[in-house]
């Protein structure tokens, strides 16, 4: 019974924290873009505009929900739900801390689902997420939306390959696809970014493309496609796509942190010099994990407001002709490292 309650608590916690993080991110994004463009950004709602996400949320709820009469209704209504569901499911295998010991002596691992092919599960869930975009694009019965859906499907297929290759290299070094085992293997040696900087770079760039973030946000390039696949969506349906995109960003940052930057692990010399052990260590791990992910979330914002958008053919060229060969070289490099016994 205790196991079930612990699992439900973890699910509920993650399901609450992710949307909260999304609302914080919308504020960070808008204030961050303000800083980068030397302007203020939203600063009227609450101190420094921190209540802006609340105002946005209320606005989303009370906007008129328009369903165009020309849409294919079942698909149109399901699309935002599919996008959101895939985004939530993907996060299930990310470990966000070590083991928590309850007063009853029960050990709780701070990960929702800990199983053998965990990293692949994340890839599978995020690859199902593309159906949200495709269904939205197709069912809207609108050329801009359809083009956005088309672009998105080809983009996701292309970058999934390099994404997978960067993951495989980590599996070669760690000898496992279980996220916790990968984190522990890194804690025992060095972070894998030290061994394979190229792999980390490939994963980072593919992460930008997989989450449709600028400079790769071609599926919703507003200068050509109005708003791309979600042109016909309004109110909370649009908000669901928006949230799914931000949750995908969080998952992708968390995956990069877990696979290449030591995940939640606190370096041994730090924990011993601070005398951290037991639940305090777990708490420190949680903070370390959140800090690392936050850094990458800021990087997402930073890049978005700094770089211009690529052309679509450039995007596919980068994917197929640069990232995939680099990914393969990185896998070979990982095999060489293991063969030489350096890891």
């Amino acid at each position, binding site marked *: 019974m205790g196991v079930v309650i612990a699992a439900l608590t973890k699910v509920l916690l993650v399901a609450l924290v992710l949307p909260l993080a999304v609302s914080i991110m919308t504020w960070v994004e808008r204030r961050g873009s303000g800083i980068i463009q030397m302007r203020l950004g939203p600063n009227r709602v609450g101190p420094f505009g921190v209540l802006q996400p609340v105002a946005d949320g209320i606005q989303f709820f009370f906007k008129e929900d328009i369903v165009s009469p020309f849409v294919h209704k079942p698909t149109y209504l399901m699309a935002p739900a599919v996008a959101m569901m895939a985004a939530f499911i993907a996060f299930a295998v990310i470990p966000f801390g070590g083991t928590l010991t309850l007063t009853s002596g029960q050990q709780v691992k701070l990960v929702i689902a800990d199983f053998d092919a965990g990293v692949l599960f994340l890839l599978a869930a995020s690859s*199902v997420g593309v159906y949200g975009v495709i269904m939205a694009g197709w069912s809207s019965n609108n050329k801009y939306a359809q083009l956005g859906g088309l672009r998105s499907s080809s983009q996701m297929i292309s970058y999934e390959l390099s994404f997978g290759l960067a993951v495989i290299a980590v599996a070669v070094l760690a000898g496992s696809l279980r996220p916790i085992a990968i984190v522990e293997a890194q804690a025992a040696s060095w972070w894998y970014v030290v061994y394979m900087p190229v792999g980390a770079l490939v994963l980072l760039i593919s992460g930008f493309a997989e989450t449709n973030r600028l400079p790769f946000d071609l599926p919703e390039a507003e200068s050509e496609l109005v708003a791309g696949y979600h042109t016909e969506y309004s109110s909370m349906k649009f908000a669901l796509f928006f949230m799914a995109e931000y949750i995908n960003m969080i998952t992708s940052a968390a995956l990069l942190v877990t696979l290449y930057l030591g995940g939640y692990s606190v370096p041994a010399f730090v924990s011993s010099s601070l005398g951290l052990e037991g639940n305090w260590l777990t708490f420190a791990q949680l903070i370390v994990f959140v800090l690392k992910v936050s850094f990458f979330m800021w990087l997402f914002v930073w890049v978005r407001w700094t770089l211009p958008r690529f052309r679509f053919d450039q995007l596919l060229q980068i994917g197929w002709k640069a990232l995939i060969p680099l990914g393969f070289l990185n896998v070979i490099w990982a095999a060489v490292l293991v063969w030489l016994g350096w890891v």
Partner: protein
Amino acid sequence: MDALLTPACCVALAAITAVEAKLYIAGIVALVSGLVVVMHRNSVIGALFLVLNLLSVAVMFALLDAYFMAVLQVLIYAGAIVVLIIFVLMLLNVGREPRGGPGLGVRLMALLLGLAMVFALVRAVRSFTPGSEDGGVLTEGYGTVSQLGEALFNQYFYPFEVVSLALVAAMAGAVLLAKRYLED
């Protein structure tokens, strides 16, 4: 409903385990969505139901403790291949299939091929003896990545390599066919 059927039906329901019940549900979903794939006139809807079909097969793998297979089923078939199928359908703007359909010859051919397939499947199912090898007990580490990898690269090494070679040949052939007219 026939009243005589009820007791037998209840006995049958009591005899199946929870896993079997879930397997039956997944199987029914797979069959129904498979039927929609072939029978729906809108090919994009058909392709979307193919995703549902593949997902329910993945659920069956997961229920049988083959988690790695389940994940691969979703990752490769649902996540990549059907995305490509839908991509092509959307690119060519394939709309609703017109009523009427193919002529008598094609229908006869389809019937013959379908019957041949049913015959082959029935033979395959009848020759299968369930749980004969180890009494249905799962071995340690069953369905894990490492065990599947070991089987693939030791026991089934040559078939695996032959299949990958065949796939590369097919891919090269497809590229050649697509590029043939561009060069002249």
